Structures are given as structure tokens and as C-alpha cells.
């Protein structure tokens, strides 16, 4: 099968790229090993958060946030995006200082978080414990349903003319100098462009083209409670990131913190009880009324994590037509729609308005000084 662009990986980035390319009339084929959105995009917390990002990542997050504003119109589906605000909590003076430091940086990049002081936070959030001494609110941040995003993008991409093939695990990858030849589920696919959106497994694709990178597995440890009376609109985080927590309008509290684990032998990921207990304890420390709530389910999945916490996003250094977008370090749900747009721009326009220097694969593979 001949295409203009092949995409490997049906997460948020891959499905968004398929949609953005198909809308511009490109013949695009997306190959997904299982069902779209089964890995990092589908199992994460669902945070649509710019807050707390490294300044190098803010332009990408802002571009993606702009797409989130029109996600319903873009996908024709309700993915439960709610700009409910992201409130990052300080539990010590050092953490409060950290919030102030980031807020000053964010202002330079056009973001406007707002500090909420001790008295105000007590007044506005009476269910917080005294452990919380302040917070910073990013009003335009929010959350969405991670289970719905990738399928919605894929559905819209199909409607725009993209070919989305699920249960198509890639078994061979080659490049003859002009085009890629990819074999999946017994079929050959060829195209001059290949977008590597394969999450943790993107590392293997990069290595296949002579660009090995130190990508590790990241398994977010997630939990959900039974429905409780609705008391919390904002999505919560803490300085240090060892707890994130939100309540959906139907009442369930979704929270995470710590890491799950995987068993490579049987390709299974599992939440870890030790991580779950840690997150449960930290949740109660912040919101004591959760003490007697019941956890009804826990889960995890697999994302890719890079040592410097930046994704690999941009053109390959070895292979013309290959563009990488993987290793989003647990922050890819928010950026997924924007990454897809960036990829479509790289393919169609040869450039994007988002600075990608920090995400260049060359930081791992290029000889020192050679750029």
C-alpha cells in the first residue's frame, strides 16, 4: 500500500498527526499495534496542564492548549475537556518558593498563573488540610477523559480520509534512500515520510535507523475511588509531582502518584501496591475527607521517559523523511494534539512555529559539537 505519510503508533500524537495531515489532503496511513489510545494516551491521569513545565516545553504546551480549546469542533466528539483550572499546591515554604519561581518564568512565556495565599486557600478550599500552605492556579488548564481522546482523533482522521489500521503491529522497517518500506500484519506499506509516534517503543524505531536513545519505561500508578459528593472542580498537583488528583462531576476521585511496574516476559503492566499506598496517604494528607473513601480500581500503562525529561520530537539525524515524536515522559496527554499539528507542519511546510531545539534527537546521538 502506497501512502504519502506513514505513522507508527496510534496515541494522541499519532492520531492527531493523522487528522491534521488528512485535513490537508495527504494520503496518510496510521499503523497501530493494538487499539488506538491503549497505552500512555489512554491510561494516564487526563491532565491538560501547562503548569509546571520547563520553559523549553511551554511553547508546545501552549500550541496544544489552543487546539484543546477547539477539540470538540476538531474531533466532532465530546472528550470531556473541562478547563477547570490546575491548582498546584505547596506543602512547605520551599515548595511555595518553587511555585513563585515558576510563576515568574511562566510570565515571560505568556502564561499567567495566580498565587493563592494561605488565607485565601483556606477560605476557597475548606476541604484542604493545614498541610497545604498555598497554591498556584492556572485557570486555563484542566482535564479531559484520556480514554476518549485518541479514539475521537482517530475517528475524525478517518472521516477526513486517513487510513487508521488497528491490530497492525509493525514487524519490519526499511528505508531505501527515498522511501520507507514498513511491514505490518503481513502487508507492505511504502511512503516517503515516516512519523515515529510509538511511545516507549519509539526508541526501538529510532535505534533501527541508527539513532539509539536512552528511553526508559514509565508506568504511572493510577487509582480511582467510588463516587463521592462533588466537592472539587480544580485538578490538583503538588510541587514535586508525587500526587495529582481530580474529581469528575459524577463524583469519582481519580488520583495518581508513584510508579507501577511491568513484566516484559508477558507484556503486562501492573499498578504497584506500595505506590498505591503512598499516593493514598499523600491524598489523605492534603484532603482528610478522603480517608474513608474506597479505592475501586487501580491501573497503569506504558509511557516513554527520557533522562532529561524532554521528549524526542523532530527530524531524524540519520534518515531523511523520518520524524520522531516519542518519550513524552508522562506529559504527552496535554501535548498530543499539538504534537500532531507540529508533525503535520514539519511534513507539509518544512517548518513549525514551535521551537524544537531542546527535543532534538541529536542531543543523545550527535557527536559533541557537531550539529
Amino acid at each position, binding site marked *: 500500500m502506497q501512502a504519502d505519510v506513514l505513522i507508527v503508533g496510534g496515541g494522541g500524537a499519532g492520531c492527531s498527526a493523522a487528522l491534521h495531515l488528512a485535513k490537508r489532503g495527504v494520503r496518510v496511513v496510521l499503523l497501530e499495534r493494538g*487499539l488506538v*489510545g491503549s497505552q500512555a494516551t*489512554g491510561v494516564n491521569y487526563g491532565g491538560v496542564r501547562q503548569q509546571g513545565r520547563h520553559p523549553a516545553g511551554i511553547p508546545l504546551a501552549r500550541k496544544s492548549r489552543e487546539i484543546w480549546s477547539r477539540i470538540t469542533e476538531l474531533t466532532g466528539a465530546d472528550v470531556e475537556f473541562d478547563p477547570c483550572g490546575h491548582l498546584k499546591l505547596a506543602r512547605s515554604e520551599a515548595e511555595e518558593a518553587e511555585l513563585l519561581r515558576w510563576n515568574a518564568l511562566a510570565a515571560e512565556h505568556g502564561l499567567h498563573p495566580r498565587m493563592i495565599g494561605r488565607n485565601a486557600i483556606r477560605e476557597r478550599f475548606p476541604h484542604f488540610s493545614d498541610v497545604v500552605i498555598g497554591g498556584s492556579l492556572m485557570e486555563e488548564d484542566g482535564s479531559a477523559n484520556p*480514554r*476518549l481522546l485518541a*479514539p475521537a482523533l482517530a*475517528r475524525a482522521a478517518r472521516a477526513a480520509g486517513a487510513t487508521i489500521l488497528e491490530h497492525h503491529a509493525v514487524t519490519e522497517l526499511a528505508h531505501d534512500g527515498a522511501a520507507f518500506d514498513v511491514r505490518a500484519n503481513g502487508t507492505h506499506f511504502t511512503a516517503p515520510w515516516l512519523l515515529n509516534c510509538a511511545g516507549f517503543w519509539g526508541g526501538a524505531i529510532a535505534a533501527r535507523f541508527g539513532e539509539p536513545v536512552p528511553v526508559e519505561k514509565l508506568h504511572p500508578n493510577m487509582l*480511582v*475511588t*467510588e463516587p463521592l459528593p462533588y466537592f472539587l472542580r480544580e485538578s490538583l498537583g503538588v510541587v514535586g509531582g508525587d500526587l495529582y488528583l481530580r474529581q469528575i462531576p459524577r463524583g469519582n476521585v481519580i488520583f495518581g502518584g508513584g510508579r507501577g511496574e511491568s*513484566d516484559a516476559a*508477558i507484556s*503486562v503492566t*501492573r*499498578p504497584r*501496591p506500595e505506590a498505591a*499506598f503512598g499516593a*493514598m*496517604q499523600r*491524598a*489523605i494528607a492534603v484532603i482528610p475527607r*478522603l*480517608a*474513608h*473513601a*474506597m*479505592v*475501586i*480500581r*487501580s*491501573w497503569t500503562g506504558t509511557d516513554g521517559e527520557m533522562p532529561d525529561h524532554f521528549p524526542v520530537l523532530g527530524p531524524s539525524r540519520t534518515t531523511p523523511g523520518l520524524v520522531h515524536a516519542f518519550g513524552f515522559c508522562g506529559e504527552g496527554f496535554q501535548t498530543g494534539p499539538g504534537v500532531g499539528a507540529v508533525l503535520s507542519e514539519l511534513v507539509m511546510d518544512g517548518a513549525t512555529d514551535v521551537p524544537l531545539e531542546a527535543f532534538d534527537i541529536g542531543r543523545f546521538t550527535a557527536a559533541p559539537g557537531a550539529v
Partner: protein
Amino acid sequence: MKVVVVGAGPAGIRAVEQLVRAGVTPTWIEESPDGGGRITQRPPAGFTRSAAALYGADAGRARRLHATLDAMKPRTDWRPDTLVWNIRPQDRVLHTQTDGAAQAEVPYDALILCTGAMDRVLPLPGWTLPGVTTLGGAQVALKAQGVGIGAKPILVGTGPLLWLTALQYAKAGAKPALVLDTTPFLTKAWQAAGMMWNAPTFLRGIGIMAALRLRGVPIAEDATPLAIEGVEGATALHWRDAAWKEHVTPCDAVALGWGLKPESQLADLAGVPFDYDALQHNWVPRRDAAGRAPVAGVYMAGDGAGIGGAEVAELSGARAALALLADAKLPSDAALTAHLDGRLRTEARFRAALERAFPYPAKLAARMEDSTPVCRCEVITAGELRAAAAADAPEMNRAKAFSRIGMGRCQGRLCGTPAAEVLASALGVTVAEVGRLRGQPPVKPIPLQQPAA
């Protein structure tokens, strides 16, 4: 060697008995305050009704089981009131919670899962009203607490438990307003020959049906329940008879049940693969005839390993323990092993006939009205599930992601079976093709607040 037995019903009791006999001291974990299982459910201490009154024809078996249970407790590390909520098969560790609080990690070298079964329910309008429960629930209320679900209950479903529960209620002084069996009489009669593989049980079943008729309990076979009516609680059943005539029968409670499904979440978390058993209409964890799972160190017995009933549970519990002992090169009784293998083969023939005699009415589930709630925890209707199918959910876990089916407190234990029927029929595929809901810990809810370690 650290051996853990989960469950102290008929399978668990007979498994422990064989282990102890071979000199093994297992850790024995039971979720309830006491063992005994469901069919031979024990009332709490201090209740005085006799075994004969509680268990009828099962009284002798119940007495023997309970005697073994009590004899074995001091010879094991007995842990009642203890929920196993997670397994880490790679480390061979169970995570348990006792009395709803105290956490423990229980390591094992070998594990026998005797986790039992629960009722299989077919949602119909009104099934979430107060006063509606399952046949198993109605029976446990009677046996464990000496209370009925109502004075004139209606019992709906199919299977031996339907008729047995009806007779137990009639004997306890209730006046069942109707026993509605969705299976035609002839479907049952056709299987009579096959059921002779366990002639005593078969004849007892015939006796129960006859006794109910003799007591004048209204019986409808080949009938269809249409809706449970009521405002504050169930007050009537709207149903249709074999001649398609509709009736409204007043009642004060309703019990539903169409056979049983294995409670196999722990096998799932242990990494045991599952196969679809078309005859039973259930997903069943994979095991050999002796109860060995394909996961090293894991054995399964009783209804949790595939529905066989209480008698088979006793046999398969002992058999799984003997397999474990043989695998561990510990003394095991070869003659008993051969005897159990023979009995289990015969019982399998009986069970096959029984499943054909009381089939799960899959078509009723597939035809469920759009407005009927399938998942009562999250209140997801059949229509919402069909919408998920239309939105390209080719299997159960994707349907869960789209519709929230199975995401509630019971994690799909109750709604998983009927939801699979609705989804499969909406997609025009077999129920085996839509798969089953993936298990996630905790197996049952645990509180956020954990006692200090």
C-alpha cells in the same frame, strides 16, 4: 514449602484436608467471618436452627464439611475476614486486608484458588428497585440470617438454584407468588438421560420440582420476565407466558438468577489465561483436569475454576491439592487421585447435561430494551452500550472505556456477562469475540485510609 489456600468453601475445605494429611501447614484465607461456602452456608455463632432445617437433603454433606472445616482450622494459619485484593505472580505474593483494615503481604510457593461463584443476572426493567436481589442472595439471607427477602417473593431465572431456593422459601413459611423458569419443560426433559450421570442429584431435582407443585406454588416455564414493577420497591412482576399471554403478578420481593459465573478475578490477576466455555456461557480460567493453571505454582478448584456445583467443588478441591503435592514431590494418595479423576469425569458429563437443561437465555439479554440499566453501579443502559458499539468498540474493554460499563464498584462482576451479550449482538459477532473485562486490583474496594504499618 509455603502453600496458601484462598477460600474455605467446599473446594477449599477439601483441599486443605489433603494438604494437612500430607504434613503441609497451609495459610488459609477466607473473605467471610467463617468458612462453609454458599450452598452449605454457615449461620453465625449462636444461631440454633438444625442442619436438617438449614440444608435439607444437603444436611449430611454440610455437617461433614463443617466438621472438617473446624478440625482443619487449628492445623493451618487460619485467616478469616480476610480479602485477597491483589496478587503479584512474579514475586508470588498475595496482598490481603483483614477486617477491612490491616494489610499484609502473604508469600506463597504454591497457591490454590477456591474463590467460588456468584449469580449470573439478566437485567430487566426495574431490576435495580429495592426488594430485588439474586437467587444466591435470597438463599444466603435465609440460611445465614434466618430471614427471607419477602413473604410472597417471586423467583425468576433458570437452573437448579431457582427451584431449590423456591422450595427452601416455601418450607421456611414464605408463599412464593411465582417461580418463573425461562427454560421450557421439554428442554430440561431432553437432558434427563445425561443427568443420570448423577442420578441422586437428578432425582432430587425432580423431587424439588414435584414438591413445589404439590405445595401449590405457581410455576411458569418457558416464560419471559418483562419488567419488575414498583416505586419504592418491587411490588409486581410483569411477565409473558409460553403462549405469549402477559400477566402481572403481585409480590413483595424478587430474586433473579440464571446459573452462576466463576469469581475468577484472582486467577486473572495471577496471569492465568481464560477460555470461553460455550456450553457454560462463561469465561473460565485455563486449568488441566487436576486443577493446574498454566502459571507456575497456581492451582484452581471449585466453581471459581468453572461452574460444577458444590459436590464437584469438594472433589476438585481435593484433586487440586493432590496435584500440588505430587508436583512438589510430597506424599500424595495415588488411589484417591485415581478415584477423584473418575468421579470428576462422570460429574462433567452430568454438568454438561445440566447446562443444556438450563441454558442462559442469551437472546433475552441481546434483546434488552435500550432504557434498561445493564450496569447498576454506574447506571449504564443497554442503549448506551449499543452507542459504544456504534462508536467503534469492537470488544468489552473498549466498550468500558467509551461507556463506563464495568467501571463502578463491582468492576463488572455483575454486569460483565449481560453486557457482553448486548455488545456482541449489537456488533453482530459472537460473545466470545467481544472478550471479557480485564481485571484490575483491588479485587474488591479497599479504603484509602490504611492503618499505620
